[in-house]
């Protein structure tokens, strides 16, 4: 099923104004409406599960287990979490008001931003569309979803099903390629969430600047995995299992959270590689257990990494590519040149370079020499090393002794820092990302302090000093005229 970029006949102006009107009518603000939409997403995920497995297999060759674990199941869990907490998140929060303003109430009231635009990405085409969508709806907004044209089956699925399960007045899907994306960005949005490459992220930000549109960016990066010397065979096996899960099991490495490369002490490297090889063999016993490469363009990009002579020489496992099926077998490299493309660009594929260091502590300096990644992974039992990694590196997140699972811990924010992005979401963070936290201060006419007003004199300044020093005793004395 192809996706023909739809050239909109009238531009997107009427789409945007239409959605603004829907917002102004108050429909999306109503909590009952929000609940019904979130339940609609759950129903979609349950009733259309088979069809979703099909489109994800069409687009990326994902096995249903992977599709469920990473997209559908994760979404069900997330939306249920949102439903359970919606009232609490949407409730005004009382905060302290200074005594001098008594009687007064201070509140932070979350309100919708208005009309939100979500750009999804091709590698988790369902998850990266529906997770932000659910957060934006929970916060009371109207939403436009622009799925990636590189996952056309999923895009078409969303376009035909979202209007059936959600309120089509307030939730829209727009299909198309980069031109459509650019046309959408010609308009003002109350918030944009973009998941994708830094290059496109820059374009989005530049266009958004004209309208002061606030943008959250979820970008890519090289996520390092630091592996400390592990003394027990069992620990090593578990670590390798989880590394496999964080690399090849995850859309064949085509994920922003996937492990990009490994850092390990040179002495420990051979043992690690042995276990990696045997685990890879076991886990890839059946052919359909790894997703394929998205398309020819990415296949070529990844194959070209291996064509570099010095990189090819560093292959210790795998390396074979199949242009017909667009598959590349799990490939492990040992110390490819640090200035090769594969070590300077985000790999986003099933090739895993291992870089050795003399001491494991040297790995932090290596990580710091590269742009801040979305995630840092480290397998170690050494508490000191863990502390150092947390304090001496910066990343969206850090996970010890596992990979990628932080994605499903609802209480943890998901997002990058520096070149890996800005803005965080998931769970309550999604709600907040798509909300305006309005400060509300309620005062009464009851108590008036004359020293607030001109004409000024030293006496009044003195009283004001007491206020700011929260010296209520002197203030009180001053008020009853006992001190000036």
């Amino acid at each position: 099923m192809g996706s023909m970029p739809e050239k909109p006949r009238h531009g997107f102006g009427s789409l945007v104004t239409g959605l603004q009107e829907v917002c102004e009518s108050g429909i999306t603000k109503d909590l009952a409406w929000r609940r019904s939409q979130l339940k609609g997403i759950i129903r979609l995920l349950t009733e259309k599960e088979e069809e979703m497995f099909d489109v994800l297999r069409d687009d990326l060759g994902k096995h249903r287990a992977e599709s469920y674990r990473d997209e559908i199941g994760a979404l069900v869990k997330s939306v249920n979490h949102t439903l359970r907490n919606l009232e609490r998140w949407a409730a005004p929060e009382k905060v302290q008001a200074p005594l001098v303003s008594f009687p007064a109430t201070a509140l932070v009231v979350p309100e919708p931003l208005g009309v939100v635009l979500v750009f999804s990405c091709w590698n988790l085409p369902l998850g990266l569309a529906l997770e932000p969508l659910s957060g934006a709806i929970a916060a009371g907004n109207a939403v436009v979803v622009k799925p990636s044209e590189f996952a056309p089956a999923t895009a078409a699925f969303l376009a035909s099903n979202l209007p059936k399960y959600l309120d089509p007045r307030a939730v829209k899907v727009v299909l198309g390629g980069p031109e459509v994306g650019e046309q959408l960005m010609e308009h003002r949005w109350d918030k944009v969430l973009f998941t994708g490459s830094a290059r496109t992220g820059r374009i989005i930000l530049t266009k958004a600047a004209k309208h002061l549109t606030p943008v959250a960016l979820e970008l890519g990066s090289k996520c390092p995995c630091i592996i400390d010397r592990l003394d027990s065979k069992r620990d090593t096996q578990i670590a390798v299992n989880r590394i496999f899960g964080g690399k090849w099991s995850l859309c064949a490495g085509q994920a922003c959270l996937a492990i990009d490369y490994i850092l390990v002490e040179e002495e420990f490297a051979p043992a690690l590689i042995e276990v990696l090889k045997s685990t890879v063999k076991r886990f890839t016993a059946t052919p359909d257990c790894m997703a394929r490469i998205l398309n020819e363009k990415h296949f070529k990009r990844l194959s070209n990494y291996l064509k570099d002579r010095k990189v090819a020489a560093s292959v210790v496992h795998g390396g074979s590519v199949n242009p017909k099926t667009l598959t590349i077998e799990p490939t492990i490299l040992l110390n490819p040149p640090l200035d090769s493309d594969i070590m300077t660009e985000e790999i986003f594929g099933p090739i895993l370079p291992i870089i050795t260091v003399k001491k494991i502590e040297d790995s932090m300096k290596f990580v710091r020499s590269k742009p801040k990644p979305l995630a840092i992974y480290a397998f170690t039992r050494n508490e000191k090393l863990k502390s150092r990694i947390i304090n001496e590196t910066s990343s969206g997140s850090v996970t010890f002794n596992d990979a990628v699972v932080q994605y499903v811990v609802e209480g943890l924010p998901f997002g990058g820092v520096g070149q890996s992005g800005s803005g965080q979401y998931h769970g309550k963070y999604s709600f907040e990302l798509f909300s305006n936290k309005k400060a509300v201060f309620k005062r009464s006419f009851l108590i008036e302090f004359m020293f607030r007003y001109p004409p000024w004199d030293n006496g009044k300044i003195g009283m004001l000093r007491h206020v700011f020093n929260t010296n209520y005793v002197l203030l009180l004395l001053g008020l009853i005229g006992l001190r000036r």
Partner: protein
Amino acid sequence: MEESRAAAVQELRARFAAGQTRPAEWRAKQLRGVLRMATEMEAEICDALYADVGKPETEAHVHEISLVKSSCLFALKNLKKWMKPKKVHARLMTFPSTARITKEPLGVVLVISAWNYPLLLSLDPVIGAIAAGNAVVLKPSEVAPATSSLLAELLPRYVDSTCIKVVEGGVSETSALLELKWDKIFYTGNSKVGRMVLASAAKHLTPVVLELGGKCPVVVDSNINLHVTAKRIAAGKWGCNNGQACIAPDFIITTESFAPKLLEALKKVLEKFYGKDPLLSEDLSRVVTPNHFNRLLDLMDDEMVSDKIVFGGQRDEQKLKIAPTIFLDVPLDSAMMKEEIFGPLLPIITVEKIHESFGLINSMTKPLAAYLFTRDSKLQKQFESTISAGGMILNDTSVHLTNPHLPFGGVGESGTGSYHGRFTFDAFSHGKAVLHRGFGGEAKARYPPYSSAKLKILKGVLAGKLGAHIQAILGFPRGK
């Protein structure tokens, strides 16, 4: 010049990378330094503020110096609490595990300040940036040159100038700074320049906080304490740098029937505050520059509104002073009603019924602050739920910015991001998610080769079913 700028930023990067700004002791020391500066240099600061905008001494103390001091004290008091990692409930799914959010500094940040509160709007963001552990470059507004050079001279004496720098200059200097890579940019000013800041930041993917302006409306119902209302409106408008403040009331909306009463009350209050000839009062700021003076004159003398003056109108070009001036029922398409006034002109717009004010406000861009005076709780509720703004106050103006527990910032055209108190600390921090797992709890069902048995267990685990978790941890399904 360019080299020295780039070299200065390089130095900041190196010092940040070396960890100089991280320890709580260093941060507290800098905050105490700023506090000392605001205390020891009060007289010099008041002089500079008077030179720059003719700010009355009381406003200098109350709106700038005192707020800087309380900001330092609040940050010092809460620093350890803000820096502490926050534990997060890690659920059954990742058992056994612990999860935390650790706040870390962003790195090297740029604060661009404004001219109307040149001390406060420079130091308040810087205080938060320091508390969060960043290295900072402050670019004070060149339109307030006395304060700018005072900051450039004083700050290095009171804080660690290897990590906190002041860069003075005008448009070209600001543009040059914006070409460099920053980890965050904090800009206070107008939306035109705000757009340029965003466009520059886009090249480096730099996140930005924008504190902009807008037309802050005041809705005045008839069910109020009129005298107190008039005083609070006057204090928020003319008592705040003579209207040159982002949160100053821009215009009033009230009913046709109530307008005359409100007008009378305002006139009385204004005479009490500033005397019969306001141009002679020491308690009114002047207009900042001849440019702004002419801009305001254009707004006042615009033939669409010039016949709508009901109070004031006096001006002194020599002293750059304009008296508090009130207009009644200016056309909604006049320049005065289309742009942010930022001066001592106050239009009163009348409607038939007070509820019509909401539609009018919603037809404009979202303001930084919206104010409502009424005792009617139903009207209050409606206001709160219908009007979107950065902040809103019931029965007062401007004071919400002094509450450090409330986030201060705009929405839409009035800005993005917020600060004050803990919010400034957060604005200059990254909340890093940290998940600790052990080597226990290994679930075979996670890994290929996949099977429907494994899928069943995964479904159970994701749905939070305890039975599925137990199966997963015990290594089901057995065999391959």
